[in-house]
């Protein structure tokens, strides 16, 4: 589909929800917020986008 | 010229409507008129009273203290309101009422009996009353009164009420 995972770190409030519910377990938090541990493993399922309360992580073409 | 008329009786007799029609007839006749009523503490039954002030000048205070014309269809209302009449005023009562010791021109008319026996509709008593009144209040054109009646009574009862009005006008003549 040509989608890609995008992170807008400045909006991340570090709640950890996306980290917990990523089926591939490839997300994690650092001081500033969320980051992808291994982008290649991402299956573009969109669950992180679906549940991020702050719209800081999403898939976009 | 200012005439203060009080119509009194019991709840279901439709005297407020009679007052409204009288006032409407009056304004059609180019008079000023103010009509008011006092509601009971609650909407239920009990006594009923309407007040109408007619005048060729403007009318300010909208309530009546002592009446020029008092109409009473029940003994109770007569006993209450006959205390508040002007000197030399007119009092029109149903024939059933016991009138004693008041200083007024009293007309007794068989209003309720006419409603029940002639028109066979007790609820026409209010319009019969208007008929009676129309003979007393000359400034209000009878035709205007009739116009007001047909506008204000429930649809379908116009004819009955015209008849009631006519019967009323005859009652006072008959006295």
């Amino acid at each position, binding site marked *: 589909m040509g989608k890609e995972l995008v992170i807008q770190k400045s909006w991340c409030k570090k709640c950890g929800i996306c980290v917990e519910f990523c089926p591939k377990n490839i997300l994690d938090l650092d001081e500033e917020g969320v980051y992808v541990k291994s982008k290649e493993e991402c299956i573009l399922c969109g669950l992180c986008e679906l549940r991020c309360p702050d719209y800081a992580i999403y898939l976009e073409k | 010229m200012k005439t203060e008329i009080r119509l009194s009786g019991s709840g279901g007799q439709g005297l407020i409507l009679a007052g409204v029609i009288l006032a409407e007839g009056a304004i059609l006749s180019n008079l000023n008129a*103010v009509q008011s009523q006092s509601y009971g503490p609650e909407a239920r039954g009990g006594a009923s009273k309407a007040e109408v002030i007619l005048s060729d000048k403007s009318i300010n*205070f909208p309530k009546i203290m002592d009446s020029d014309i008092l109409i009473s269809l029940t003994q109770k209302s007569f006993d209450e309101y006959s205390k508040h009449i002007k000197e030399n005023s007119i009092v029109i009562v149903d024939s059933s009422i016991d009138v004693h010791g008041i200083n007024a021109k009293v007309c007794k008319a068989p209003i309720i009996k006419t409603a029940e026996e002639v028109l066979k509709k007790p609820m026409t008593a209010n319009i019969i009353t208007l008929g009676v009144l129309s003979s007393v209040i000359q400034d209000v054109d009878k035709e205007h009164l009739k116009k007001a009646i047909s506008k204000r009574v429930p649809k379908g009862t116009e004819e009955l009420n015209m008849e009631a009005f006519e019967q009323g006008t005859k009652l006072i003549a008959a006295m």
Partner: protein
Amino acid sequence: MMAVKVKLLQGNEACVHGAIHAGMKFFAGYPITPSTEIAEISSLMLPKVKGTFIQMEDEIASISATIGASIAGQKSMTATSGPGFSLKQEAIGYACITETPCVIVNVQRHGPSTGLPTSPAQGDLMQAKWGTHGDHSIIALSPTTVPETYSMTVRAFNLAEKYRTPVILLLDEVIGHMREKVEFNELENLEIIDRKRANCNAEEFKAFEVTEDLIPPMEKIGEGYKFHVTGLVHDETGFPTNSTEEARKLLSRQTKKIEDNLDDILMNEEYMTEDCEILIVTFGCMVRSSKDSIDELRAKGIKIGLLAIKTVWPFPSEAVKKLSEQVEYIFVPEMNMGQMILEVERVVKNNCKVVGINKFNGEIITPQEIVSEVEGVLSFAK
């Protein structure tokens, strides 16, 4: 000669006729004596002009729906009496801070609480100004005749639209329930004012713009001007802000838009004031008793006049003050324990003596009572 169109109308009836003349397209209410006829007649008349009537579940819902309808672009009104007016207070403040035009009718009855629910009173005058929490301006009008109820309802809508503000129409049971002759020819020509619309495109639109006249233009929902409305302190854009400076600006502007236009908003009637040495100041149905009492007192040689206050809020301080310089006494007859008199006293200071004539038992004050009260005070003063 043009045929004179006359009708015998009840005060409450005239209010609805006036409202429809003014363009009312929405009424939400909840029945309460002695205002109920306003709802009833609205339910009868509104569908005929493609307007909407709804009986809501209570008074709070009624005024909320009324404000909502106005935000959506319709001229709207609600009507109630004392207990319901108390319940509407929170939402009145919302209408003030959101500058939503609407008309709130309170047909006053005896109180406090349920009191004598079918008896007249004028006990909600102060409440009309102070009933809701927090600082705000309000316009309140009080008519004295049935024809004036018609024209004043039109005026209430006009002021609401012109100044983007709720307007309170303070009737009383006497005016609301009495029937009187209304001549329509002039009334039907009464001017109608509509709210000012935006003269810019949607992108430039600011829902609470500080314009020169201090009255922000108001757009309708559904026409592309997507805006936000909130009861929080907000800036010109309409969005909430915590800036104390914006708070100050907002409240100042909302007060100032009324105060800068007192000339247009205030309305009084003077009766025999030219040479008067004694003045009656009053409002609502008490104007009627007062006029009769003045005729009687004048006939006895007493130089008495009347200032009948039609716009009761903002209080016409200047008019009262000016007349107070000319007279020795001001009498303030009110069917309450003394409310307007507080404003009169504040304004006239030591200019003249101020005497209240009060009745709070559910009865109207008669002309005779005013006459004897005035005579009593005057003879005592001699």
